[in-house]
């Protein structure tokens, strides 16, 4: 058993368990905190995958910015927790759960028979090169310049939108 597998098992377990906790905790704040933990575990997995840049951005943007926004809004609105998640409309929810488990089995089966590891074999040096901030920065500002500009307009639209929606009522 090598160190990579051990690290993967630890991080994957954290990610899987916290993701379940996110959807089962009735208090929104606790859900949010578990989601942050989940993002940290993912950042660790990205490091295992030689994606240094994405790993750091994951922590800065997701755990740092987006989740803080969520926590702010939760605390601003001070909503009550859902008393028990499986109390109302119980049968519909159990049904949803059942379907999800079924879909998960199907997706896993599809991924396994697809057996990507036959065609996709990890090449250590290529993989390390592709994850550096240098490679990504170069690609981003040359080949992917158009998506980059579109992303800029996306952020502009989001800013305008958030401002007019959150503005106090006019009149």
């Amino acid at each position, binding site marked *: 058993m090598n160190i990579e597998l051990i690290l993967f098992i630890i991080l994957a377990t954290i990610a899987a368990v916290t993701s379940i906790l996110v959807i089962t905790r009735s208090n929104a704040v606790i859900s949010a905190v578990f989601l942050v933990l989940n993002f940290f575990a993912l950042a660790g997995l990205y490091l295992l995958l030689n994606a240094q840049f994405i790993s750091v951005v994951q922590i800065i943007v997701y755990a740092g910015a987006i989740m803080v926004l969520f926590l702010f809004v939760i605390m601003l609105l001070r909503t009550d927790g859902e008393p028990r998640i499986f109390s109302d409309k119980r049968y519909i929810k159990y049904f949803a759960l059942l379907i999800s488990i079924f879909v998960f089995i199907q997706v896993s089966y599809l991924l396994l028979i697809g057996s990507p590891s036959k065609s996709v074999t990890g090449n250590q040096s290529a993989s390390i090169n592709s994850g550096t901030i240098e490679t990504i920065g170069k690609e981003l500002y040359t080949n*992917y310049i158009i998506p980059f500009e579109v992303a800029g307009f996306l952020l502009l639209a989001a800013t*305008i939108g958030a401002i007019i929606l959150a503005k106090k009522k006019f009149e």
Partner: protein
Amino acid sequence: MELANLYQSINLIIPEIVLSIALIVLVIADLIFHTNKKIIPFIAGTGILVTAIFVINQFNYIGFAFSTATHTARSFGMLAVDSFGVFFKLIVIVSSFIIVLLSLASDEIQKTTDRIGEYYALIYGMILGMFFMITATDLILIYLSLELLSLSSYVLAGFTKLRDRNSEASLKYLLYGAVSSGLMLFGISLVYGLTGSTNLYIINTLIQNPHINLFTLSFATILIFAGIGYKISSAPFHFWTPDVYEGAPITITAFLSVASKAAGFALLIRFVKTVFVSYETNEGFWSLIEVFDWQSILVVISILTMTLGNFSALWQNNLKRMLAYSSIAHAGYMLLGLVVLSNQGLIAILIYFMIYLLMNLGAFLVVMLIANKINSEEIDDYNGLGFTSPLLSVSLAIFLISLTGLPPTAGFIGKLYLFIALVDAKMIAVAIIALLNSVVSLYYYVRVLKHMYLVKATASTPSIIPSTSNAILLLVLVVPVLIFGVYFQPLVEFAKDCIVILGI
């Protein structure tokens, strides 16, 4: 990327550049003229007109812009500029110009003068998103432009906030949209994993080799279809449509039902054509790569979409909501043009879109002018309007008859070409189902006419006479619907010129 390549690419995206500049000018002008915002709509309109000129100019160009990936010594771009794309850009730009005029006439929008700059800026955001959606040939750009369009429309759907049903429409739109784009993203990640590329053309060449697992690929493409199907509101992703269309301001409803749907269709057609078609036969039929049976899936989806749309519309008492269901049904009809997988079907879709633009925007214009006066869209409130407001009622009658697809209106021509394409592809059964659906739709369209003309006007029935400029706008939409019903040759010729989709 070399500098020469970049220079040539920039030539191909001039309309988008002009649009971006106009957007920035609009945002700045909104800050400068914050006391008197009367000028903002004119800046918006001018920007759209200038863009339209450059779009028309693009008919001369053809080619890939921003070539990134090279595969077997050929390079494919991130954007494909071709006449098919230019056609849909024209649809988008014409409908946006009409929407700007509609916004000027709408009381609902005019009440929000202090935020009018943001309103037009977000409309520009939508147009920009649609432009990139229409031309994109790279999954990254497709995803981003879809999101740009969606984000702007989420906000616009809740823009007026005069009644709280608005922000609710917004929330519902957002939740459904985010989930379907999440599904789409997962599908894209699988496609990338299987092929190692996000360029549609490279994916096309790679999936022709037998190493790729076809089941996984089919699953991934179904997930991607979830994202596109949400945009064109096809079943089973149509649930948001009635609520959002009813809750959003009426100008935005009209815009979503025409332009956003056009962009979604352009994306869908380009996606199917570039990814799954290996070659075109001499008769103009598209030969699919044996991935899985796209054709039967599309048949099922389109029949489901039009049947659900038409039958749900039967019970609606709100005209806006009824038009929402009818627009779902129309998406179903238009999908039929893709189902036949031939150039003839494509021509039928293009013809249908030109006519759909006129009649749907026209119907919404009349509904808006009446709602301005009586502040209601309930069909019961239309009782007797046929006698007190002749111009509006006659126009609405023409638009509704055209939406049903009866001669001598243009709607008939649109349906006719679709059915001919179906019959030529030997899909008689599908054509008959579509025909029966049209018969069902006759019932709910005529119900509105019954309320307007067969119920006697009472003393309280308002008489609505539109202002001169609105009347002119109305005539501009009504007259072509009648003319194209008899003299449709130019539409057909134009559509035939616009079916070039850049292939391998």
